[in-house]
């Protein structure tokens, strides 16, 4: 049995997902390092807000990865949920 080309492509997507995960940890590590000298309350706030921001970026990057791959492969994706809601609203009106 031999792997097909698509398997190598998904291996590449997995590699990208891994790199994004490590990039997230690296950024979080830098945030922790930079805020070490701050007062405890300020440090908590900066780490909390910064951490949430980076977590959102990381999750968003997975959507970008999915969209980029499906675009390259020409796989149609369902309409985004926001557009579905808008369309349903227009139909009701």
């Amino acid at each position, binding site marked *: 049995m031999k792997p097909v080309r*698509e398997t190598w492509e998904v291996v590449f997507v997995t590699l990208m*997902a891994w790199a994004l995960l490590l990039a997230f940890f690296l950024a979080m590590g830098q945030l922790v390092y930079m805020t070490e000298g701050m007062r405890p309350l300020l440090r908590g706030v900066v780490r909390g807000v910064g951490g949430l921001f980076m977590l959102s970026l990381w999750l968003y990057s997975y959507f970008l990865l999915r969209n980029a791959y*499906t675009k390259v492969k020409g796989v149609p994706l*369902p309409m985004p949920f926001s557009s579905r809601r808008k369309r349903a609203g227009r139909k009701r009106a």
Partner: protein
Amino acid sequence: MPLPIQVPLTITALLISYFSTRILESFLAARGLTVPDMHKPGTPSVPLPGGPSIMLSLLILSAILYLLYGDMRILSVVLVSFTGFLIGLYDDLKGLSGVSKALLLLLPGALLVLTGSYFPRPILPFIGPTRLTILYPILLILASTIVANGVNMLDIFNGLVTSVMITVTLPLLIAFLLKGDTVMFSMGLLYVGVLLGFLLRHRYPSRIFPGDSGAMLMGLVYLGLLIEGREEVIGIVAMLPMILNGFFIVSTIGGFIEHKDIPKRPTTLVEGHKIKGVGDADAPLTLSRLITLRTALSEKELVFNIWLLFLFSSLLALLTLLIMRWWV
């Protein structure tokens, strides 16, 4: 415990699992508890669920391991997996909606939190040891449903989920060995033994299907191992293709829906009983659909291709382990 004792215990796990699965097959077939295997000519009937034989083997072997070590972490792994098994068994026999299953599967993680059997100081790459006393229990409860459902989503082809779970447990075993955590290493080895015994009957052509009880149990034992063994990141990396698969499915169908309730199938059967990914925009995006977009594959070939992805992610998990050891 020296290795010469662990090896016979693992072989015993394999044998108990294999023979209890064979007995369970006859029991289920005699009571008509079978489902058609859709990917084969003539759609043969296959007994389901195989989860009880996996659970029974794990209970017996974990009891022996607990008598040897007296480590409470063994009981925690069993508690988490047994709760998931019961939820899965109810789903196999009576049926549960996608949303209720997702919500009920928060329970195994919640039990771990309630019993306080976790250590909220995960070691993260490039950061080192952290203290996440508030965030960790929340993530643990969420991880319980994500892992159990994610593993269940992989249970679509003969032997796939079992071979994948064996493969992704190997980096965890290496991590436990390097850390000198003999208890979790032994527990992981027993888990691999039990799965190997089950795989002998679940591999292509399957004589039994694990069902939701088996798949959820497999996922939750894995979760228990990585939480109690404190190798969270290694476990996450090894499971990356499962995370991507779950993310792709949920992000394209917009929520938790039962297999049978998905309006459009991601793959279709073509000539020669080969599987081909569909080009329909409303079908969920799955790993099997992506891999078979251009070339139709037989079930055996597709299982091999998906398994390769997990082999690769397990290698990435080992690389992550090296990076973490080098960074500290």
